[in-house]
């Protein structure tokens, strides 16, 4: 019986393909895209001011509120600033580490180093951020205790705290793609560049960076998008600072349509970001 079914499918390659694709397509279209679309459609609704029930009539009030209220503009710009800073810091930290891991370390140590880089990912997000809270605590925290004698004070909870915390969290996501990029970089290119008289920084700028750029871009997609949507870090080590995710979190139970409007913003930002990346051609050579 099984043989006849197999033969039937074998004779119809298109149906075979469709059968294979049905499950993942169902997940992608219904569960993922469908949920996203209904969220975005909700952003056009408003709520009854007193009871909080959703009024399902199409209007643009939420978007007008988002664009005209200066505090929401500030939140979006602040979140964008945080995401860009985190991406930059992660890149700066990841490049030397990935270079060391790929080019300088011995074969044996490479595997150990990769494992060490991955180990923080096994710890819970909350555990790591609460640890940072203890470190950053003004006056009684670990940073003040450790570096106080040197005159360095903890930046405390706030903008700096959030950037430090998020950079720590997403660093492995940046190191690994760049490490993969460096692995693919042939050593002979570096040797040739040196033979032709280029100094270190020139080699880095003209040879290494362009070849490793696609990996940096791949890593930045993680750090940028994860920072855009983050809200827990701001609640724990952000002091009274709020990020875009916090606005969504505060509104989703009381004013779901406005929360949906707010979540449309990072979707739009990521769309623009990916379009810029695509235009720069970084993804074609990945």
């Amino acid at each position, binding site marked *: 019986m099984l043989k006849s079914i197999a033969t039937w499918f074998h004779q119809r390659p298109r149906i075979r393909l469709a059968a294979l694709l049905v499950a993942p397509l169902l997940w992608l*279209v*219904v569960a993922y*895209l*469908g949920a996203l*679309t*209904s969220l975005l*459609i909700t952003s056009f609704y408003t*709520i*009854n*001011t*007193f*009871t*909080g*029930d959703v*009024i*399902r*009539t199409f209007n643009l009030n939420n978007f007008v*509120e988002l664009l005209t*209220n*200066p*505090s*929401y503009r*500030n*939140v979006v710009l602040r979140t964008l600033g945080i995401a860009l800073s985190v991406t930059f810091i992660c890149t700066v930290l990841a490049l030397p580490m990935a270079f060391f891991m790929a080019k300088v370390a011995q074969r044996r140590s490479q595997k150990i180093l990769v494992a060490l880089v991955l180990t923080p990912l096994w710890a819970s997000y909350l555990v790591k951020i609460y640890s940072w809270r203890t470190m950053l*605590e*003004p*006056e*009684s925290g670990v940073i003040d205790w450790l570096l106080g004698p040197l005159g360095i004070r903890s930046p405390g*909870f706030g903008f700096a705290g959030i950037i430090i915390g998020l950079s720590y969290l997403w660093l492995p996501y940046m190191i690994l793609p760049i490490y993969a990029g460096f692995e693919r970089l042939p050593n002979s290119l570096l040797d040739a560049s040196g033979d032709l008289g280029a100094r270190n920084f020139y080699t880095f700028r003209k040879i290494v960076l362009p070849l490793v750029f696609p990996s940096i871009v791949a890593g930045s997609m993680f750090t940028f998008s994860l920072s855009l949507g983050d809200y827990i870090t701001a609640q*724990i080590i952000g*002091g*009274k600072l*709020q990020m875009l995710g*916090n*606005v969504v979190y*505060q*509104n*989703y*139970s*009381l*004013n779901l349509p406005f929360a949906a409007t707010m979540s449309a913003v990072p979707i739009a930002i990521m769309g623009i970001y990916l379009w810029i990346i695509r235009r720069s051609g970084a993804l074609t050579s990945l």
Partner: protein
Amino acid sequence: MEVQMRNKRLFKALSVASVAALALSGCGSSDSASDSGLPKVEMLKELGAGEGQVNIVAWAGYVENGSTDPKVDWVTGFEKETGCKVNVKVGASSDDMVALMKTGEYDVVSASGDASLRLIYGGDVAPVNTDLVPNYADIFANLKMQPWNSVDGVAYGVPHGRGANLLAYRTDIVKPAPTSWGSVFDANSPYAGKITAYDSPIYIADAALYLMKTKPELGITYPYALDQTQFDAAMELLKQQKPLISEYWGDYLKHVAGLKAGTTVLGTTWQVNINLAKGEGTKVEGIKPAEGSTGWSDTWMISSQAKNPNCAYLWMNHIASPEANAAVAEWFGEAPSNAKSCDLTADKNHCATFHANDDAYWTDVYYWNTATEKCLDGRTDVKCVPYSEWATAWSSLRNS
């Protein structure tokens, strides 16, 4: 190639159309538009047999079954006696509880005043038939039929307990001891950057209360009935306060940790936070300042879509009983609502500490209530700012 291109475009169009159709069908036809009248919801006429379980939305610490502390348990006895298994979902905030009750999956909620009216007018809760709750008779008279738990002489819940939002201060850091809410609003405060406030739109009432006592020319008589001018004055005060704030607290455990570490030395708190901080060795006290304070009196309410109404009534009667009410009031750190509970608390001074019998204490405590467009203080010549605008103004303040 041509055929492939056409198929690709067809496929794309089909998938977009199917996604859109799915999403729009999910949205359905628009419900009837909001109406500000009171929804008609039937109350239970008589008690039947228990259904075997009850789903509760409650504040942390209200429904303890021994898992936090083996000695703290008023649920297991109830489950054995009535056969109703208790499933509890802890609500993080009043807004969270309103959203949870709207799903219709829960039977009972312990609603604070800033949630109760929203639930009543949203048709999410039913009136309570107090004849079916024998312990209702022993509840303090000044908690029954209040503006936040009754409408037009109909009771919508069983009062739970009450507490005031106190002013906490580190006794070893803040000297001399504060006596007024002015210390958290003072722009020249020596503790600037170490002050805390409650992270909820309802905190606007605290600013309004301060203005009520210090700026009588604004004419505020009830902190939850603010016309636009009064509301703007309160928001202005909060904007001035913002640079003084280290953290706005919503999670009481983080607040206790902040008091212990010294990142916050002054600000709004609950008695239970003071008790917890003292338990960890922090030198802290909580006082009700000269202006009085805002407070809360929670109400057990039954869902209009309750699947287990009989168990729900049995629970409400149980939690209002002298024994259970005393236990939860002592654990949480609030004044009990049942007058007979005061004789049953382990700490004989509990009711004295929490002023359960002291009517005079509560005269300047303004319990959380939900601001409505119709002014709650009776004014008919102006429109008051409704709670939803409190929420948007608060959100703007927090994000600026």
